[in-house]
């Protein structure tokens, strides 16, 4: 119950109440209920884990307002207390596949959202340069490159800059580092932690990597398939060291081991049920 705590309650950043999505007879997610609070001064970082087909991406795409997952078949979805009507720049999304627009330079890719808002050329380019630098790209040498000239890690940096420049309240990331090699992946995780501290957005991060979810998230949602359900929320320690160093941290390893056990159990159950 809200309203019990004296001051006016802040609406949750994202709230799901018994959200179900069906495609004909197939149930993608069933009765998913959760609430991510609006922590003053910083957003939460939610890592989402679970085997394939558990509906992680469905949850993410419903928050983003993207069809055909949105609208859900039943249940209630609210963002900052307001029902979602469709996609918008307040909920930025970074995909696993590279989505930089091929016909635009890095600069114009990053400035895309501002361009759509009608921000003047000079102003949006200045802002874009600042964000290109923030995600660790070289403003001088990279800004005028086209996506085809970039490596996978660089392309994801562009995608992140392009989203952050719009100062979204919520950032949705669907396995954004899934296609990157391990070392690039660690670097991108560190980058994300740094940026997250700065932008204070609530992040939903879908991943297959338990370490990644535990490292990045301060909460980990574990989902189970057939039909997709949210089965557990685990609190995770905040990153206090770079990703590679964190791997040696005792507390970190304990949480990872715990989550891995849970995921393995869910996987085994799903296998037994469907198998």
């Amino acid at each position, binding site marked *: 119950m809200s309203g019990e705590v004296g001051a006016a309650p802040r609406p949750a950043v994202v709230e799901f109440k018994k959200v179900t999505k069906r495609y004909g007879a197939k149930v993608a997610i069933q009765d998913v209920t959760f609430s991510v609070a609006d922590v003053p001064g910083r957003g939460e970082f939610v890592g989402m884990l679970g085997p394939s087909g558990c509906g992680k991406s469905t949850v993410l795409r419903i928050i983003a*307002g993207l069809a055909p997952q949105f609208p859900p078949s039943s249940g209630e979805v609210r963002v900052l207390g307001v029902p979602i009507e469709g996609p918008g*720049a307040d909920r930025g999304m970074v*995909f696993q596949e590279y989505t930089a*627009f091929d*016909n635009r330079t890095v600069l114009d890719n990053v400035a*895309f*959202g501002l361009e*759509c808002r009608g921000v003047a050329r000079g102003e949006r380019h200045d802002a874009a340069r600042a964000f290109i630098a923030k995600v660790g790209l070289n403003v001088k040498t990279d800004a005028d490159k086209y996506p*085809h000239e*970039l490596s996978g890690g660089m392309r994801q940096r562009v995608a992140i800059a392009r989203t952050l420049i719009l100062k979204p309240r919520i950032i949705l990331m669907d396995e954004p580092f899934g296609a990157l090699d391990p070392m690039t992946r660690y670097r991108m995780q560190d980058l994300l932690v740094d940026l997250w501290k700065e932008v204070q957005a609530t992040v939903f991060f879908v991943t297959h990597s338990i370490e990644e979810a535990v490292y990045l998230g301060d909460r980990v949602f574990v989902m189970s398939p057939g039909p997709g359900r949210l089965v557990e929320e685990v609190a995770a320690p905040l990153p206090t060291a770079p990703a590679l160093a964190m791997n040696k941290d005792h507390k970190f390893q304990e949480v990872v081991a715990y989550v891995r056990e849970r995921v393995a159990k869910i996987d085994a159950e799903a296998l037994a049920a469907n198998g």
Partner: protein
Amino acid sequence: MAGGLGRAFFGRLREQSPFWVRVLLASSSIALIIFVWWLATRGVAEERVISPAILESPGETLASFKSLWFDRALTRNLVWSLWRVLQGFGLAALVGVPIGIAAGTFRPLESFLAPITMFGRNVPISALVPLTLLWFGIEETQKVMFIFIASVAFVTVDATRSTLDVEERYVETAYTLGASRWQVVRKVIIPLALPDVFNSLRLLFGLAFGYIILAEMVNMDRGLGTLILISQRRGPKAHVYLILILIALVAFGIDRGLQALGRSLFAYKYAREA
């Protein structure tokens, strides 16, 4: 072993040969054709395998190029044919590309147009000659409209295909960056579809260039088609072969030119990772 021999000669499956080997292989196929041609047409006229009334020898054919160039005004006729294709095909592109992109963006329009484009793509091209004669008379309009009608359905459907090939994730990304529907169409779908649209126009232009010869065989007023028919009826027969070879060469040249144009128009697509 046969397999070993095959590998020694043809290389690994799908392996590309070095450049000079490719040039050598291509030249030897041309040489082979000319050799067979020469073999079939050598000696005194009466003793040849193929009578000179049907096919003259390579030397005789080449020698007749002079009269084709000067007496039959080869270049002027070539330019006429190209000009007709350019008008008809240009019109088809002007009409077909916007409609095709619109149909790929708004699928109900695609369904609405489906019967028309299906008809347009399946009607035999040669049957369009009498139809266009009926509608547009025998002058220039008929020839231009023939090309237009013959290619517009293909242009439209290809533009639709190119538009649909722009992956949904780009559209979704644009939406989550705050783009409006119209902005998604203008800033994402159209620019990302264009390289592919251009490529299909290039291929279809080659087809249209082939069609014009057909339209020029009626009324016989200028153009390469007319020239072929005149040569077939009044001779020299060698001109028929020369013109056919020329058409293939010109079509190839235009295709390469358009390819180069595409590469410079859409340079960003061909840039390589640094």
